[in-house]
């Protein structure tokens, strides 16, 4: 009852106002390519210095959750994910928008975001102690295999061929090694001073998604108006809600994957959407529909990336171990206001902590409400002619990239990566596996090097990386994931051949 009372504190006028401002601002920031949740929270921290601790935390957490959700808007409307967590949303969201179903896609995105987000928050509220215990079991060996599980997904996300997807992913992992070695801090592959700091994930994300999209828009801009402006169909909100609930498989997989990835410290939420999308596609009865405007793809991706928000805070609030980069920045916000993570947070500072959690929970519903309101205006964006849209995306991409580190080198890297990706797309490569490689590379390498050092010469690296129940479970999942991707491709090729033979006969 006491906790319920704290939750009701959220409705105090000041707290409620801060929450609404955080949600609306977060949705708008999230929709801008390049403004990732981590950056949005980091930018806001100085503004919270003079706020009351409770309002500061409500603002930061509302912005965190809303930017993750807001990234879906640009992913669906212009195929440029607002943050790495929204990459998978673009796979089916953008084709839906091209078919005039942008409003419907946004409905699915925001409804599934709320469902996934609420389930994730339930885990934070009711299962924090066991979840914290589980998070502690993830050492370098387990984290290394989580990264490898992500690698197995590369073959099938967004790519028509498993081998090409894996190759593109390997290129992404190689790009992630540019810069400094994570242990010895010695430079690697730094051929020019622009690469001294390596390739930032968000820079790569914007370059690989936004720049090829700009080139494509410029191509289509010359085609004439009928080619550029999509026919827009309105869609009943109730029908969208009904369809979302009907997609139980996508919702379940999305939420469960999001929760598990959120719990694992260091894995980050960025891969939750991609893993959920891939698993949903593999278990779907119609995997061939994915990538062509399948609502289940949007639902799985969006429920996953918000389901991870709650669980990613469990290790942070209970142990002081941030589960994701954004959680690390939030930790800064807590410390600034004299709140030290641990049991004290739930006893001495119970009011602040539970009001903060309550705000996040209510925030999930507000994200849906405001998100659905925003989706009405997607018509405006979809009807902007492509040459104007290309200019707008370029400006946003340049600003977004430059603002990450105030470094012009990032802008150059973005354009070089984007142009290379545009050419690679012409020969059948896709950007998603490359970005996934860039995300997973540092996780895999860091865990690999740490594991090697921990194991030492007596245990041996091989034994260290193949011992323990979680490790074997992860290895099993990796084998299953890769095997199923290959099986799916063989089946689809066989189906294509059968169809072609039938057409020849007819």
């Amino acid at each position, binding site marked *: 009852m006491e906790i319920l009372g704290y939750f009701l504190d959220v409705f105090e006028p000041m707290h409620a106002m801060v929450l609404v401002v955080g949600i609306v601002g977060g949705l708008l920031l999230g929709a801008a390519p390049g403004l990732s949740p981590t950056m949005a929270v980091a930018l806001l921290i100085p503004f919270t210095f003079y706020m009351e601790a409770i309002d500061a935390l409500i603002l930061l957490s509302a912005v965190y959750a809303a930017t993750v959700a807001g990234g879906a808007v640009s992913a669906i409307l212009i195929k440029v994910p607002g943050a790495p967590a929204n990459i998978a949303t673009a796979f089916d969201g953008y084709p839906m928008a091209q078919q005039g179903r942008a409003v419907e896609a946004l409905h699915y995105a925001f409804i599934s975001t709320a469902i996934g987000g609420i389930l994730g928050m339930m885990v934070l509220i009711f299962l924090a102690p066991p979840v914290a215990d589980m998070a502690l079991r993830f050492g370098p060996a387990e984290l290394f295999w989580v990264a490898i599980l992500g690698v197995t997904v590369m073959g099938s996300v967004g790519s028509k061929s498993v081998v090409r997807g894996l190759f593109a992913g390997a290129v992404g992992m*190689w790009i992630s*090694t540019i810069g400094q070695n994570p242990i010895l801090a010695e430079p690697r*592959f730094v051929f020019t001073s622009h690469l001294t700091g390596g390739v930032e994930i968000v820079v790569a994300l914007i370059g690989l998604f936004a720049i090829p999209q700009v080139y494509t828009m410029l191509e289509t801009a*010359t*085609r*004439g108006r009928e*080619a550029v402006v999509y026919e827009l169909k309105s869609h009943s909100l109730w029908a969208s809600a009904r369809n979302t609930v009907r997609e139980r498989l996508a919702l379940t997989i999305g939420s469960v994957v999001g929760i598990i990835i959120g719990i694992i410290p260091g894995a980050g939420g960025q891969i939750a959407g991609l893993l959920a999308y891939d698993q949903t596609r593999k278990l779907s009865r119609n995997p061939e529909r994915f990538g062509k405007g399948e609502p289940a793809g949007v639902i799985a991706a969006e429920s996953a990336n918000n389901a991870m928000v709650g669980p990613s805070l469990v290790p942070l609030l209970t142990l002081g171990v941030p589960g994701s980069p954004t959680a690390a920045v939030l930790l800064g916000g807590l410390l600034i206001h004299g709140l030290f993570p641990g049991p004290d947070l739930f006893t001495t500072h119970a009011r602040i902590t539970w009001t903060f959690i309550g705000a996040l929970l209510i925030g999930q519903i507000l994200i849906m409400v405001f998100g659905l309101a925003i989706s009405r205006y997607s018509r405006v964006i979809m009807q902007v002619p492509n040459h104007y849209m290309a200019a707008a995306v370029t400006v946003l991409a340049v600003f977004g990239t430059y603002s990450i580190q105030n470094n012009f080198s990032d802008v150059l890297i973005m354009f070089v990566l984007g142009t290379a990706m545009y050419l690679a797309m012409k020969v059948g490569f896709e950007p998603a596996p490359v970005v996934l490689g860039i995300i997973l590379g540092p996780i895999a390498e860091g865990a690999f090097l740490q594991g090697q050092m921990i194991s030492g010469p007596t245990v041996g690296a091989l034994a260290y990386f193949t011992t323990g129940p979680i490790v074997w479970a992860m290895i099993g999942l990796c084998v299953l994931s890769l095997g199923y991707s290959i099986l799916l491709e063989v089946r689809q090729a066989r189906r294509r051949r059968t169809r*072609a033979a039938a057409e020849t006969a007819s």
Partner: protein
Amino acid sequence: VNSALAIPLGALALSVFLTGAALYRGKPDIYQFPILIGGAMIVLALFMLADVVMRKRAGVVATVEAEPLPLASMWPAFAVMAGLSPAARAAGLLLHCLPRFPRAVDRLCPGRTLRPGAACPAGGLRFRLRGHALRRVRPRAEGPVAGRAFAMIPAGAHPEAVTPLAAMTRTAACGHKEETT
């Protein structure tokens, strides 16, 4: 180099270069992970190469996938790419009748003939060479940009030899027959 081989060979060259660059630096502690990745890339590139070689031996060079390209200025680049092999050049003959922004292939077909290297009167076309082939020429309608045409080009085929094939594609994709150039 046959255009179908260009992609896997390029991938192999890139992998060897990156692995070589890592090995050349000679610092095993720092370059351990990049070398592992480079090794994986070489294996994957060899898979891609083996796939193309096997299909080539089976008598198939490339699949041509055609779809509308609005930017006419892009055309020469693709024409050069297409000109890499006789079979690919012949494939240019197949690419004339795809609609500009089609919803149904048979409704919007402009019905013009495109010579390899020339811009499509309907607003330009592009085609991509794939390392695999389908069994027969057939139109496909998928998504909002429908009207892709696929063609199997036999190994070493002369452009003239595939003219009937081109006519067949037009018939299939446009729903009506016409003269070929």
